[in-house]
């Protein structure tokens, strides 16, 4: 029993040294254009799912690149693959390919 009334908080910091980056590597290989993202948020602004849920494709793929996969595992399924993000991206990131590469990775590496 915890008689202290509190627990030691876990850090919110991304620990890049400790993180596995399997998802990021898969994304890099299958959708190399994903490296061109500059975080403008054009993809997220018009996202069908993002307007109604916590799904944020910009942040989710950036977190994956730092080895933080949780958000992708929890929320990627909300993507409707409509392609609006692909249409808008000023850097030509093949966003659907990028999303599918993450989905494939999750399928092959269940937690």
């Amino acid at each position, binding site marked *: 029993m915890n008689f202290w009334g509190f627990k030691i908080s876990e850090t919110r*910091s*991304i620990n*890049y*040294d400790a993180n596995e980056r399997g998802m990021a590597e898969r994304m*890099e290989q299958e959708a190399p254009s994903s490296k*061109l993202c*500059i975080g403008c948020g054009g993809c997220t602004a018009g996202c069908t799912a993002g307007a109604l849920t916590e799904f944020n494709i910009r942040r989710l793929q*950036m977190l994956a*690149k730092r080895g933080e996969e949780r958000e992708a595992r929890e929320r990627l399924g909300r993507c409707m693959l409509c392609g609006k993000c692909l249409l808008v991206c000023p850097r030509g990131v093949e966003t659907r390919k990028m999303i599918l590469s993450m989905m494939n990775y999750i399928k092959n590496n269940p937690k």
Partner: protein
Amino acid sequence: MKGTVIIIGGGPAGCEAAHQLAEKGCRVHLVEKNNETGGNLNNWYQLFPDRKEAESVRGYLRRRVSRPGVEFHAGTEPRTTSRRPQGGFAVELTDGSLVEGDALLVATGFRTFDAARKEEYGYGIYENVITSVELENLFANHEVRTSRGETPRRVGIIHCVGSRDEKVCNYHCSKVCCVTGVKQAIELREMLPEAEVFCFYMDMRMFGPGYEEMYREAQERHNIKFVRGRLSEAAENQEKQLQIKVEDTLVGRPLRMTLDLMVLLVGMEASEGSRKMASALGLELAPNGFIRPADPHWGTNLTGADGVFVAGSCTAPMSLTDTLADARSAADSITEYLDAKESREP
């Protein structure tokens, strides 16, 4: 002959202006405190955006001034600067000689920010923190290693060191560091193909021709990782690596990692020479310490002082491209001034 012009500073601006003025029939005294021309360019290995060897531009500048009409005063600087009673200027140099001219061009350039002033980055204390200028020197010697002689596996490039930072009293953007960072990141990846290279930036200011394209290339071809976040603190661990704390602002979470080598993109500040000339000639300084030209639109080479002109990065941080163009424009302003003076005088 149109007249005589004294140019203070033998960097790119001074050399280019000297050539242009001589070409237009002026006599030029080119005064340089170092023994050779080139100024800050002498510390560079390759240039953005085309990766040209800096040495080729240095050669170009040397050729520009090795010509009739340009007298090069090397290894000396002004001791006193005064106006002659009959008009024009008399400059007594530290080597004892006196040069006189009808107009004076200040081309005293910039100095790089002293990185030790950002104490929290540990420059001069941590073994594997270097400046972008020192990295150029490593490139020139074709070897980048850690203090222990190992090949770095992760390198971080820190943008805006001494720029856009109230804490060091520099509000201004030094303009060229972003693209220098991109260029150096690419050079690092070419030299150390196994290494991960990160750039930590506040904004990527890719203002020049080919710069944005270079940034894309850095991401796509060289897999350089750009993280938007300012370095808060670096510390050295037992392995002499740097443990850094930034916020990855685009995901909204603190990010920590270790680096084998940390490169500080040091910004530009007004040089000592600029400050001295400004005080000797009564030139107005902008709040950032650079010399304020007469007008930011049409008078960029003019000053409030009659017969005193400015060129290059003594007025603001400037790329080499812009510096050379600014020098040509200054030469035009000076010949215009000398022509007008000639037509006024009988």
